[in-house]
Structures are given as structure tokens and as C-alpha cells.
């Protein structure tokens, strides 16, 4: 029975190969997009869920506004974790991670390798984040000082075996005992460490509630409502934080008073499973995903799938009109309605199944490309994973049945007499349903085109906007701390090379690099109203000219002034927050803490530097001060000329002589700058890709429709030609209806695209306006492509000899 239907179905599909091809290709492309994006979305949603107690793990985050600065942190103070566990029985366990020291040099033979994924953690780390242990014992691994746990990758790299526990490894010139080796953390974890050292090795001014430097995770007991638990933070603030804050601000009586002065310090809990998609705080271990993109991608995937399905239905229905005669004869011959429906359904389902097979193949082979575009490491095997594949298999049946049902019922309802007379031509132009589908397809395409253009313009804006410094031709030598006492020798040696204009030694740069936040006050005694919280960057004499920054008031640091060790240059924002028209000559006070207790330091403002974008353009510019000092983690050189390769190798030679065995690593500042916008570039690539695909699918559909329309209207075209219609007359006639639909699609797409892109741009504190021509451009592109598609077929129909079409009686 079914076999018979399918046999006839195959014959029918083969008979109209062109139609079958267009239909299958369209659906296959749509389905493959859908598969790829579904893999992506499923992966994004899976982050950190594999930890056994994932649902009970929370990170303690903090929102701080103080002294003109605003911080959204994912770190809290060192005593926060212990205090929560001590005071609140709901807290089963806590663990802290300390990563502020950044990269470390690890010794391998006579060489030192720069390691980035290196942190300190409490011994409880493995209780909260259990890992697969390859050797040693994770439970006790970090109890003692000078112990380290290695990842599989690290163990193999340094010991060529995963059985490395008991060995000794030298990190930053100190010996550590390897106490365990763990499997590399799964790709869908929000952190990946190669080295976890004992927290006991951290040198820190402990028990400081006011400094936030520790990622703190807590495990709540089962059944604890975390929102209710968050209320306890107020107690922590009143009981512990206030006491310490009073040491700096003697006038402060309560946290309520602090809040009243326009400042705040709020703690809350971030569920572990939400970190990857919802958290974009400072300092995340790795660039997280973004739930917005998950939504956008999902919407796009569904739209493309929908467009493809719509095409499928559209083409099937259009073709069905041409098959009306066949249906009429079958009905006269007594074929029941049920049989007809079954026949149509088997044809559409068969096509859908072939499309799926093709789609899986396409997805399988384009996954590496997709991974590159989306910066993912999705596994092609997961297409066939048990929770994905059944759904995939079900999909073509749904699509096939939906696509088959409409024409099936549409046709089987025909009265045989009418059909045999061939009088249902009018079905074409006046079909609102089909017109609606064309409108929807072009709506999607136009929205995507607009999105692409807006993202492109914003990225261009980022590249060309005046940043307040010049990022081009700045070569950053990273890990320069390894030069130790030779740093100045190295800098001077490089400066002597031809093509090097100037150089500066500082780890604080207006791209991703070191940051340091400090609190100052306008008057000798601090209170919430006169405080200034700002980035304080340690730089040298040559910093401002190497970065091409501009002094707008006062002067730069100078060797001619003996007192510049207490000098500070503010940015314009800091000056504004302090309320100074001209801050030059004014003083700033800072509490400085060391082993001998707290001291007051008095700083002299010597100049104001023009505001420069030291974070990405997503953020506003916050207060910042430059101090003269010594920080050699990065040495940057302004170079000239285009022939940089030989220059770099010359620099490398100097490095080798002055820091033997130490890793030489460099980077161009504009490259580092561009890196801050990876996510946006990804969006751009993705939206270009999908815009092209959506248009392609829409055009396939349009092409099919026009073909069938032209076929149906051959006779009419012939008659019109005989009556004097020219080819342009006819092409215009055939295209007009479709172009009208594209026009309608544009009008609907404009407000939707404007709204969506306006929302996207809100992520940027500095952004472009969406200009009107973007809309016109998108509509023009869509119209042009639609016209091209339609006219190819229309011209073909129009230049046909009318004698032939009139003969077919």
C-alpha cells in the first residue's frame, strides 16, 4: 500500500525534476541551518550543568558605585566566603579562586613557558566542582602550601604523562608539588584551568572586606531559596563591612547613610548555570556567551526553517494547480479523496526526507566552518546524539505533512468538471495565502540585511572613532616582567633600533590588560561624598607620547621635576567627578595600607589627559589617574615603517640576550583592540551568512513560483504578444505583482529591524545612529535580487514564440 504510493511519488517527482530540485534544495538548506543553530543553542544552554550539584552552586557577585565609579564585579572580598559559611547554616560549603596575579612562568628544562590558565584555589574547590582525577587525590590536593593540581594537558606538556602526582614543578621560580592530575575541564565549563595552586601560597592583606579580588562560589543546602538567602547580605554589610569602612570614613554611621549619598555596595548570588549566558561582569575567567545571541540565533534559525517550509508548501501548491488535470481524471476514474490526500502526502514527505538526509550531510560538512564563525567547538557527532536526532527525524514528517496537507485538500476539493476544463488559473494571482508567504520571506531577508549593515557600520565606527589614543603601529612586548632588572636595558636597546620611535613600560594599556582600582578623597578625611574611586595606572615618562594621548591642562610627567613620584594626571572624567574646572595644583588623598598599618598619601594633580577609551566602547569612560612608577609587565613601542618582520626579529634577539630561556611574546595593539569586539564580529559574520541564506532560500521559492506562474500564463502571454505587447511590457507585467509583495515586506521589515537593531546598539555606550539610507539600501537589495530572479523567468516566457503557445490547445 505505502510502497505503491511511494513508487508513484518517486515517478511524479522525477517527472518534474526542476521543481523537485528547487524544492528539496530549499528545504535542505533551511534544515541544515536549523541543525547547526540548534547544536549551537543546545551547547550554549548546557554550560556548567554537568557539575553534580550545579543547581545549588552560586557565585557571590557585587555591584558597587562609589566615588564616581561604577563596578559590576563577579568577585567578592576574601572573608565573604568564610563568613557566609560560619554565620549561615544554609551554606554547605564555599570555595574561592584567586587569579589577580595573572600569567605565570613555568619552567620546563631550561626554558620558561608563559601559562595563562593558572589560578589559586581553596582546597574545597573540588568539593564544589568535582573533576575526573587521573592521578593523585583531589580531595586533599590543595591542603598544604606549595601544592598544585595539573590538568591533563599541563601534565602531558611538562611530564609527558598524566601520572605526574608526586613530581615537582617550578612556577614563578618557586617549587610546587603536584598532588593531583585532573582531566581537562569540559568545553562547556565557564572556566578552564591548567594549574590550580594552593590558596595558602597567596600573599595578601587578608580579612579585608573592602577589597574585591576573589571569585567566591557557595554551595547552598538542598531546598534553600537563593533569593531569600540574598537578604542576609545586608546583615553581613552591617556587621562586618561597615566596621572596616569606618576606618577610612570615620564620619560614616550606617550603610543606609552610604546609600543615601548616592553610593551603593550590593551583593547577590549568580546561579552557576546562568553564568555563561547572563553574566558579563568583571573579571570573568573567559568571555562568556550571551543569552541575547542565543535568542537571536534561535529566532533566525526558526525563521529560516519557516521560510524553507513555506517555500516547500508554496511550491507544492503552485505545482498542484498544474496537476489539476491529473487530479480531475483520477477523480473521474473514481479515486477516493483519501487516496488523493495520501498520494500528495507521500510526495511531500518523500521530498522532506530526502531534504533531511541532504541537510544532515550539509550540516556535517559545514560544521567546522560554523565552529570557526561562531567560535565554538561543536562536535559533528552530536547531530546524532540521542536527545537531538529523534527530534530531527520527526521534523521532516511534520514539514512534509504540513506541506502536503494544504495542496492535498485544496486539490481534492476540486470539482472534476471544473478541473478538466482547466479553469482554475485564477488561483495564482489572487491567492492571499501565497502572497503572504512571499511577503514573510522577504520580510525576514530584509530584516537580516538591515541587521548586517547596522552591525557592520557599528564595527566600522569602533575602528574609526577617535579613541583618545593611537592604537596603530604599537608593538606590545608581553610578559616583559621576565626581563627583571634588565627591563630598562632592553627598552633602551630596542629604542636604538631604526624604525622604533618611542617606547613605554607599563602593564596598564587601553586594551585588555592590567587594571587597578583605588579610592581617593578630595579632602584629608574621606566621606562618601568627597570620595573618588578611579583606575590608577602606573606608567612611565614616555607613556603619554607613545600612546599619542593629549594633555589638555597642566603638564606631562617630567624628569625636570623632582616631586613627580607623588604626581597624578587625571582624565577629564575624573576631573569632572571631583567637580574641578581646573584640577591642576589640587591635592588628592589616599589611604595606603602596608605591614605598618594605614598611612595617608597626598598626591598632587599636575595635569589632565583628554578622555581616552580604556575599556571597550560598550562602556562609558570612568575616572582614571596616571601615576609615575615602575610596572614592567608590558613594554610597548611605537614603530614606523611597514617592514615590521625584520624589526621584530631584531627585538627578539635583544630579548634572547637579556632574558635567556624566557618566552618572547608580542602583539600589535590594534589587533588587541579588535579582539575586544570578537563577539560583535561574530554577530556580523553570522548575520551576513544568514542574510545570504535567507535571501537564497527566498529566491529559490520566488524562482519556483515565477516559473509556475509563467507556465500557467503562457497562453495569456502569447495572446498579449499577438496584440502588440513587447518583451519589457510582459516582464513588467509578470514582475509587478512580486515586486509589490517585496515592497510590502520592506514596509513591515523597517520598524521591526529598527527596533531590533536599536536594542542591539544599546549594548554600546558609544554607538552609531541608524540612518535612513540603511533601510532603503536593504529594500533596494531585496528588490533587485527579487527582480533578477523574477525577470530571468519572465524574460524567458516573454521571448517565447507566441505561435507555439497558442498552438497548445
Amino acid at each position, binding site marked *: 500500500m505505502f510502497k505503491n504510493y511511494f513508487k508513484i511519488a518517486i515517478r511524479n517527482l522525477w517527472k518534474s525534476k526542476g521543481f523537485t530540485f528547487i524544492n528539496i534544495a530549499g528545504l535542505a538548506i533551511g534544515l541544515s541551518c536549523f541543525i547547526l543553530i540548534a547544536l549551537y543553542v543546545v551547547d550554549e544552554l548546557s554550560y556548567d550543568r554537568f557539575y553534580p550539584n550545579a543547581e545549588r552552586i552560586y557565585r557571590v557577585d557585587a555591584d558597587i558605585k562609589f566615588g564616581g565609579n561604577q563596578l559590576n564585579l563577579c568577585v567578592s572580598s576574601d572573608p565573604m566566603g568564610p563568613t557566609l559559611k560560619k554565620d549561615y547554616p544554609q551554606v554547605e560549603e564555599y570555595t574561592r579562586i584567586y587569579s589577580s596575579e595573572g600569567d605565570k612562568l613555568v619552567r620546563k628544562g631550561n626554558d620558561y613557558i608563559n601559562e595563562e590558565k593558572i589560578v589559586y584555589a581553596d582546597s574545597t574547590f573540588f568539593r564544589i566542582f568535582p573533576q575526573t582525577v587521573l592521578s593523585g587525590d583531589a580531595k586533599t590536593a590543595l591542603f598544604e602550601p606549595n601544592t598544585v593540581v595539573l590538568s591533563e594537558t599541563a601534565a602531558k606538556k611538562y611530564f609527558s604523562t598524566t601520572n605526574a602526582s608526586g613530581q615537582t614543578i617550578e612556577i614563578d621560580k618557586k617549587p610546587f608539588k603536584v598532588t593531583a592530575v585532573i582531566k581537562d575541564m569540559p568545553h562547556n565549563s565557564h572556566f578552564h584551568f591548567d594549574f590550580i595552586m594552593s590558596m595558602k601560597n597567596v600573599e595578601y592583606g587578608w580579612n579585608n572586606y573592602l577589597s574585591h579580588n576573589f571569585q567566591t562560589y557557595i554551595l547552598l543546602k538542598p531546598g534553600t531559596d537563593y533569593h531569600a538567602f540574598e537578604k542576609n547580605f545586608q546583615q553581613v554589610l552591617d556587621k562586618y563591612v561597615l566596621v572596616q569602612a569606618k576606618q577610612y570614613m570615620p564620619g560614616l554611621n550606617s550603610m543606609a547613610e552610604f546609600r543615601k549619598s548616592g553610593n551603593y555596595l550590593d551583593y547577590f548570588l549568580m546561579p552557576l548555570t546562568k553564568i555563561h549566558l547572563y553574566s558579563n561582569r568583571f573579571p570573568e575567567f573567559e568571555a562568556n556567551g550571551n543569552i541575547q545571541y542565543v535568542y537571536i540565533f534561535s529566532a533566525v534559525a526558526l525563521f529560516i526553517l519557516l521560510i524553507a517550509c513555506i517555500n516547500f508548501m508554496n511550491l507544492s501548491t503552485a505545482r498542484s494547480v498544474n496537476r489539476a488535470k491529473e487530479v480531475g481524471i483520477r477523480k473521474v476514474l473514481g479515486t477516493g479523496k483519501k487516496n488523493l490526500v495520501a498520494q500528495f502526502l507521500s510526495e511531500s514527505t518523500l521530498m522532506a526526507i530526502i531534504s533531511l538526509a541532504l541537510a544532515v550531510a550539509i550540516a556535517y560538512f559545514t560544521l567546522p566552518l560554523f565552529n570557526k564563525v561562531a567560535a565554538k567547538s561543536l562536535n559533528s557527532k552530536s547531530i546524532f546524539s540521542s536527545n537531538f536526532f529523534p527530534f530531527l527525524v520527526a521534523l521532516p514528517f511534520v514539514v512534509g505533512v504540513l506541506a502536503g496537507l494544504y495542496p492535498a485538500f485544496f486539490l481534492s476539493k476540486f470539482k472534476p468538471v471544473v478541473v478538466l476544463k482547466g*479553469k482554475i*488559473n*485564477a488561483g495564482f*494571482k489572487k491567492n492571499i495565502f501565497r502572497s503572504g508567504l512571499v511577503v514573510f520571506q522577504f520580510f525576514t531577508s530584509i530584516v537580516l540585511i538591515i541587521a548586517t549593515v547596522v552591525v557592520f557600520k557599528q564595527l566600522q565606527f569602533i575602528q574609526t572613532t577617535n579613541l583618545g589614543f593611537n592604537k596603530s603601529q604599537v608593538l606590545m612586548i608581553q610578559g616583559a616582567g621576565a626581563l627583571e632588572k634588565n627591563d630598562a636595558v632592553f627598552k633602551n636597546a630596542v629604542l636604538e633600533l631604526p624604525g622604533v620611535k618611542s617606547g613605554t613600560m607599563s602593564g596598564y594599556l587601553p586594551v585588555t590588560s592590567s587594571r587597578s582600582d583605588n579610592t581617593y578623597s578630595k579632602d584629608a578625611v574621606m566621606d562618601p561624598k568627597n570620595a573618588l574611586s578611579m583606575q590608577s595606572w602606573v606608567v612611565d615618562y614616555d607613556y603619554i607620547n607613545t600612546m599619542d594621548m593629549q594633555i589638555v591642562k597642566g603638564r606631562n610627567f617630567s624628569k625636570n621635576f623632582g616631586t613627580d613620584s607623588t604626581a597624578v594626571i587625571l582624565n577629564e572624567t575624573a576631573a569632572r567627578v571631583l567637580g574641578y574646572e581646573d584640577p591642576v595644583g589640587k591635592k588628592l588623598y589616599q589611604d595606603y595600607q602596608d605591614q605598618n598599618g594605614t598611612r595617608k598619601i597626598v598626591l598632587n594633580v599636575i595635569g589632565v589627559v583628554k578622555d581616552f577609551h580604556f575599556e571597550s566602547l560598550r562602556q562609558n569612560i570612568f575616572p582614571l589617574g596616571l601615576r609615575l612608577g615602575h610596572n614592567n609587565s608590558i613594554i610597548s613601542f611605537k614603530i614606523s615603517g611597514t617592514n615590521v618582520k625584520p624589526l621584530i626579529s631584531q627585538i627578539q634577539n635583544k630579548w634572547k640576550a637579556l632574558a635567556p630561556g624566557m618566552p618572547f611574546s608580542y602583539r600589535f595593539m590594534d589587533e588587541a583592540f579588535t579582539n575586544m569586539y570578537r563577539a560583535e564580529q561574530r554577530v556580523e559574520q553570522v548575520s551576513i551568512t544568514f542574510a545570504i541564506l535567507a535571501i537564497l532560500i527566498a529566491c529559490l521559492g520566488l524562482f519556483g513560483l515565477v516559473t509556475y506562474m509563467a507556465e500557467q500564463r503562457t*497562453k*495569456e502571454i*502569447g*495572446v*498579449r*504578444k*499577438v*496584440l*502588440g*505587447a*513587447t518583451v519589457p*511590457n510582459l516582464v513588467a507585467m509578470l514582475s509587478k505583482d512580486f515586486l509589490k509583495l517585496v515592497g510590502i515586506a520592506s514596509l513591515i521589515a523597517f520598524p521591526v529591524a529598527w527596533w531590533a537593531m536599536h536594542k542591539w546598539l544599546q549594548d554600546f555606550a558609544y554607538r552609531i545612529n541608524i540612518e535612513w539610507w540603511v533601510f532603503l539600501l536593504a529594500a533596494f537589495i531585496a528588490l533587485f535580487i527579487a527582480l533578477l530572479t523574477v525577470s530571468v523567468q519572465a524574460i524567458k516566457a516573454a*521571448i517565447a*514564440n*507566441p*505561435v507555439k503557445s*497558442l498552438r497548445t*490547445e
Partner: protein
Amino acid sequence: MIKITELEKVYRTEEVETIALNKLTMEVKDGEFVAVMGPSGCGKSTLLNILGLLDDPDNGSFMFNNIEVAHFNERKRADLRKHNIGFVFQSFNLIDELTVFENVELPLIYTGVKAAERKKRVEEVLDKVQIMHRRNHYPQQLSGGQQQRVAVARAVVNHPKLILADEPTGNLDSHNGNEVMELLTELNEQGTTIVMVTHSEHDARYSHRIIRMLDGQTVTENVLV
């Protein structure tokens, strides 16, 4: 008006080569009403299509109003056609989606006549074929005879010098057929040249002259008047 000499038309398909017109020579004078007769497949429609500039001959000469048009390209033929020639087909060939009025209006649109003038001329000609009262109906709503009268109206609305009719009564009963024939005669009396293909001796008698064809050639000519 028409002078063709040694006209040839050959249809080539993969298997066979059909000589539809074989060195055919004939002449049609201004104001004449000529009937073309002959067995099925002898080349009548082919001849009419060439006369109507819908198709081009392979060989020979075709003088239309003393101009050699045998080698005209598509654009020139279309231009000549829409100003000089009207067609009436056996199967009416009205466009289903357009009303009677719109169908008749089409040739005027393609020759660039202004809307007001179009309205005047369409109504004039619809009056003449006595179908004015059905001007807003669709072809499907008319009888065969009415449809053919609309087709005739459409053929003459541009005031062509020549009307080509291919079995105009072929799909009609004798009553409706006679009506159409009388309409054509009337047009001829007003000065329009007519070449009509027909299988009916009865219809042929409306003409001045009958050209009989066989295998792509004229065999005899009977002058009737």
C-alpha cells in the same frame, strides 16, 4: 497589400522535416476578402502566422504594403503588427482574468493610446459588435458567439488595415457563426482587408476569392464575386 513570392517554411524536429509552405506565391489586394481552404495540415495556419508577422519564413519574399518584411526582426515585426494587423482565433483567446472591456482595450494600451481615447474607441467597437451591455463581464460568463464577437472587437479596435482570422467559426454553431461572418463582411465593406482560414464552404462564400491549398502550395483560386 500583400504580395508573397516563392515563400518557404520548413519545420524541423528531431525526427522529421515538415515542409509547411512550399514555394508559395499569392497576392491579396487592398480591400479584398480572401478565404483560404484546404485539408488539415496543408499549411493554412502557417501561412496566416507569417502573414500576421508572428512567424518568419525561411525563404522567399513577403511584401507588406510594398515593403519587404521577410527578414524583419522581432521588434520591427511587432511594431508593424500592432499598428496594422488584427487577429481572430478559433479558440477566441480572450484573457480570463480581464473583463470584456479590458480585453478589448489591450491592443490600445500596447499602442500607447491615452485612457480617454481608449474608452471612446472600446465603447464604439463594443457597440458595433453589440456586446456593450456585457462590457463588465468576464469571458467565462459569455456564450461562444459572444466571446468571438468580443475577439473580433479586439481585433478591430486599433483600426487595422488587415484582419487575419483562423477558423473564426470553428467553435461556434451555425447561428453564432453566421453572426460573426456578417460582422466580418461589414468590416470588409468598410474597407478592411480580410484573410480568413476556414473549413466551411458556407463561410467561404462570404469572401470574394477562395485560395485552395494542398501540401504547402496553392492549387486553385476561385473568384466568387
